């Protein structure tokens, strides 16, 4: 089997070839948000615009609900989903505030105080996960 020594890192999705395959249409939709004409079309009618991308019903729902963590679980990658966030007026740091569940102010404050420390954040078992 494919060796995945990174699966024990907590709170992290490593965007490998399996995730790339699962998330392909979701990510291709997200990157289309890079261009103004596509942003205009999507913002005018989200459902109709999404019909162009054969993503799974779960992926489509995550997009419509802007469930950023769910998009990552379903094969999305942050550099793609950040294009959709930008369309919504959300920058990388605000997006991180949402994904961590900390909220914008608490997250920004953590970064100003040196960021999230490595101690206790290397292994899933340190988070009580397996």
């Amino acid at each position, binding site marked *: 089997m494919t060796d995945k*020594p*990174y699966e024990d*890192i*907590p*709170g*992290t*999705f*490593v*965007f*490998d*070839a399996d995730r*790339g395959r699962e*998330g*392909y249409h979701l*990510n*291709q939709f*997200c*990157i289309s*948000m*890079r*261009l*103004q004409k596509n*942003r205009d079309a999507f913002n005018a009618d989200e459902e109709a615009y999404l019909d162009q991308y054969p993503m799974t019903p779960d992926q489509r729902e995550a997009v419509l609900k802007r469930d950023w*963590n769910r998009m*990552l679980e379903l094969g999305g*990658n*942050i*550099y*793609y989903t*950040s*294009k959709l966030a*930008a*369309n919504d007026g959300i*920058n*990388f*740091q605000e*997006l*991180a505030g949402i*994904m*961590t*569940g900390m909220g914008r102010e608490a*997250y920004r404050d*953590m*970064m*100003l105080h*040196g*960021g*999230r*420390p*490595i101690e206790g*954040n*290397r292994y899933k078992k340190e988070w009580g996960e397996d």
Partner: protein
Amino acid sequence: MAKLVAGVGCSHVPAIGVAMDTHITDQPYWAPMFAGFEKSKQWIKEVNPDVVFLVYNDHCTAFDASCIPTFALGCAAEFQPADEGWGPRPVPVVKNHQKMASHIAQSLILDEFDITIMNEMEVDHGLTVPLSLMYGEVEAWPALVIPLAVNVVQYPAPTGNRCYNLGKAVRRAIESFDEDLKVVIFGTGGMSHQLQYKRAGLINPEWDKAFLDRLTSDPVGLAQMPHVDYLREAGSEGVEMVMWHVMRGALDDEVTEIHRHYHVPASNTAVGHIILENKAA
């Protein structure tokens, strides 16, 4: 003949570009980050390279998921700054030394590095932010730029060792080009940062400092580090630092550290910067 004289390692955080483009670099949040590049701007003005060979990664901007080249060399005449979802950066168009880029492409492939050749390409913050940090606000970039885009978005990125050896091949390619040109190589990205999911915001300054130290003193050993160490210790996006090995590989075994700067935070990221010169330079 062309000569490679120095290497620059430099983070390429998009928010740095936004701060420069919206003229807020003197705000307390940003001032200490930019202060560490004052010496660098002076240095590059004095060295005044004709060509910058710039190793960076595209962040799902010019390359969508349909085609993911591990190493892609920019061979177009020029490269426009891309719209990454918030409008293109208002910075000069990036101009190539197209003849030299063609020579490097041919040389690398015969040297058994099977790179992709890009005859059309837009460039994102990964390329333009390091230029802005080193040159400041300019009407036109003072050097021609040959971009090398490295895949670090979809796992696996090329290994550190592969990048280090590619750097050696880039040096051979540059120094077999028959024009008297001064070249500086940039390795960009990093340092520790994670942009995604519940561990976002990870910063590991001890690890970053050790990386900067070993870049000078133990580059061969450092290039052996497995990907999982970057991912775990420096965050999922910290794996960008493999690109610094291309820069280091292109330099002499013995180098002099001219300057170093380290600052937390810029948005979600630890900013790292180093200037290394070949001793013979």
